[in-house]
C-alpha cells in the first residue's frame, strides 16, 4: 500500500519535513507498516492507557509562586537576530513552495 503523492505533499507541508528522495518515502512506508502491527491486537472494550505507571504516577502540582524568568539576556543569546530585546522572525509563516517550484523528486511521481 503506497501513500499517495497528495498525502505526501500534505505531510511535508504540515510537518515541514522533506522526504527528499524515494529512500525517504520508503522509510515512511516502513514506519507505517511497523505501526500498523498495533491493529493485530483486539482492543475492543479496552480503555486506552496513558502511562505504564497508571495510577501510581501522580501529576505533580506546583504552588503558584514566581520562581523563574528575568533572564532576557540569556534567552536572547540564542537569537540569530534581535531588535531591542525582541526575537526577530519572518513576517508570518513562509508557505512551503508549490510542488512545481520545489526541486523535489515527488514531482516525477
Amino acid at each position, binding site marked *: 500500500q503506497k501513500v499517495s503523492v497528495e498525502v505526501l505533499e*500534505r505531510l511535508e*507541508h*504540515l*510537518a*515541514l519535513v522533506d522526504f527528499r528522495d524515494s529512500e525517504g518515502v520508503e522509510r515512511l512506508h516502513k514506519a507505517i507498516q511497523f505501526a500498523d502491527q498495533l491493529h493485530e491486537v483486539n482492543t475492543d472494550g479496552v480503555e486506552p492507557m*496513558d*502511562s505504564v*505507571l497508571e495510577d501510581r*504516577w*501522580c*501529576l*505533580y*502540582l*506546583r*504552588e*503558584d*509562586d*514566581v*520562581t*523563574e*524568568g*528575568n*533572564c*532576557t539576556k540569556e*534567552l*536572547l543569546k*540564542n537569537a540569530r537576530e534581535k*531588535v*531591542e*530585546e*525582541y*526575537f*526577530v*522572525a*519572518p*513576517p*508570518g*509563516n513562509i*508557505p512551503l513552495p508549490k510542488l512545481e517550484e520545489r526541486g523535489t523528486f515527488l514531482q516525477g511521481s
Partner: protein
Amino acid sequence: LAPWIPVVGLEIHAQISSNSKLFSGSQVQFAAPPNSLVSFFDASLPGTLPVLNRRCVEAAVMTGLALNCSINKKSLFDRKHYFYADLPAGYQITQQRVPIAVNGSLSYSLYIDNKMSQMVTKTVRIKQIQLEQDSGKSLHDDTRSQTLVDLNRAGVGLMEVVMEPDMCCGEEAAAAVRELQLILQTLGSSQAVMAEGQLRVDANVSVHHPGEPYGVRTEVKNINSIRFLAKAVDYEIQRQIEELENEGTILNETRAFDSKLGCTVPMRDKEAKQDYRFMPEPNLPPLILYDAKSLPANMNHQQVINIDWIHERLPDLPSVKREKLVEQYGILPEHSFTLLNEDGLAEFFESVVKQTQMKPKKVIGWILKDLLSYLKQHSLTVKESPVSSFLLADLLNLLERNKISSTAAKQGTTDLCCFYCDFQVLVELWKGEGKTPLEIVKEQELELLQDEKELEQICQAVIDGQENEVIIMVLG
C-alpha cells in the same frame, strides 16, 4: 421570502488570574519589558518540562462549578501542533480529549425592547471548559518585513469556555459574555478585562431557514470589546443573509472584524485547512481531582484538589447577589442588573441605604438616575464619585425631613456633584496660592456661586465637616 434563523456560538479565552504561568514559574504580568517574564520552558529550550500550577486548576474548577458544569475527576492534556513564531514549541498544550469541565449552562438577561422596560432571561449551554497555554505576542513590522516576538505571554494559563450555538444575535452574545465576565470577576479566576487581552472572544456565525439544516459557519476574530462583539455578530449575520439571498455561497472561513469599518473581512493568512495532529502530552499524566468521598487518606494536602472544598467556598454569584438585592431592598430586577453592572455601585447603594431614613425603593432612583447619569456624563467610575455615600445619604435625609425643597432636591445630586468637583479644585488652589475663592472661581471658570461670603462659608463648612449646612447652602 422565507425567514432566516441566525445561529451564534462563542469560543471565549479567559486569562487565568495567577502569579505564575500554567506550566512554569515565570510571572504573569501585563506590560513588562519584552521577554523579561520568560523561563527556559516558555522559550521551549530543549530539556525543559511542564509543571502544572495548582492555582490554575483551582481557577478552572471554580469557573466550572459556577457555570453548572460536571467537573471531570480525570482530565487529560494534549498537544495541538501548528507553526507560528509566537509558539516556540510548535505546539500548544491544551485539553482536547477530556477537558476539566463539561456540560454546563449560563443564564443571562437582556432587555426585551429598546425602551429598557422589561428583562427576559435566557440560557446558553456551556459545552466545555479546558485549560490551555496562551501564546506569545507578535508585533508585525511591515516596513522591515519582519515580526518581533515577545514571549512574556507565552505559557500564561487560559480557560477556554466553549458556548454552544444557542444564541441568535449580537445582543444575546454580548449579554452572555458580559454575564460571564461578571462571574469570572466575582470568582477572581480571571480579571476578564477585554482591553488588556484577558478576555478574548471568537464568534461562530451561520444562518439557515427554519426546518433546514444549519448553514455553513464562519469564525469571526479580532473582537476587542463587548460592544464590538454585538456589532461584529450582527454584521456577519446580515452579510451572510445578503450573500445567500443573492444566490451566493458562504465559505467556511475565518474572518476578522474591522472595528473602524464596522464589517468583517477574510483574514490574510489563507492557509489550507489546518490539521493540528493532536496527540497526548507525554510529559503530563492525567489530572486527578477529588471530592469529599474520594479524598485519599495518605496524600500530601498540597497535592490534592478537593472539588467539594472549592464548591463550599464559592462566593455569591452575580445572579444570587441580584436576587438578594431585590429581596432585601424591594427594588426591581432591572435595577439589580444596573447596580451590578457598574463596579462598586451596589456597595455604594447599600452604604447609602444604611445611612439614610429614606426607603431603599426611593433611594434607588437617586442612585440610578441622578448619581449614575452624572458619573457617566463625566466618565467617572463609582470610586471616583465626587460625592461620597455619606454625603448623598445626608442629602436624602434632609429631603425626607423636608429641610430642602423637593425641586431643589431633584437637581440636588447633580448640583452637589458639580459643586464638589469644582470645589475640590477651589480648595486646593485656596490652600496653596492665597488667592480669594472668588478670584479662583473666575480664573478657573468654575460653575460656583459668585458670592464671596457665601463661598467662604461653604468652604469652611465642608472643611469643618458640616455636610448638612453645605447641602442646605448649596441647594436651599
